[in-house]
């Protein structure tokens, strides 16, 4: 994904349902530096105010696809943290 000149590469972190309430945001754009796996994202989120309620084994998706814990991520990716699913 092309970044405009001077814009540092970021990861967009999507938050839903209880996690969006805990963090007070539906998404956060974080500098990609230091975020190389979904576990790095989880650790960063869990360190934020309200973030401790996000489970360590939270389901994650990268660019709309379910991903295994610790999957690698790249600048420009959208990483979603999914609370326990409750559809149906």
């Amino acid at each position: 994904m092309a970044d405009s000149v001077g814009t540092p590469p970021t990861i967009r972190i999507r938050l839903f349902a209880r996690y969006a309430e805990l963090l007070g945001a539906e998404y956060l754009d974080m500098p990609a530096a230091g975020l190389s796996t979904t576990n790095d994202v989880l650790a960063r989120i869990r360190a934020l105010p309200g973030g401790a309620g996000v489970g360590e084994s939270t389901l994650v998706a990268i660019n709309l696809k379910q991903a295994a814990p610790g999957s690698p991520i790249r600048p420009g990716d959208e990483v979603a943290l999914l609370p326990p699913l409750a559809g149906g």
Partner: protein
Amino acid sequence: MAFLTRDPVHLDALIARITGPDRGGVVTFLGLVRDHHEGRSVDGLEYSAYEPMAEAVCAELIAETESRWPVRAALSHRVGPLGIGEAAVAIAVAAPHRDEAFAACRHLIEELKRRVPIWKQESYSDGTRCWVDPTAGSTKPSDEERAGARPW
């Protein structure tokens, strides 16, 4: 065809999309909003979704179901606020014979609960609200909640 909708879901419309002269059996599932959850009185609820992913996963579920059984399948899931008794999810499966239709319909609802990123916030008669967590330690989980608790 979108799988998520803010409007009421209708089985008739789903069935019309999947029936054909070679399909002699149709099985449907309708999931309705219950007025109670773990002993608490529920007034209503609100579904939210990671919509682009939910649409993609629903398409995947239909495709995998239609490749595993000789069926045509359709589903629809509500998002937004729902009242007691309203249909939250509707599934219809048509097959040459009933066995495949029953099996495929069961597969679809179980996999939908397990894999589609949708969340449900219940409102209780005492004015409180709660995000439903099927994986949380409930004293007596229902079969469907147990199914929802399986890891991906």
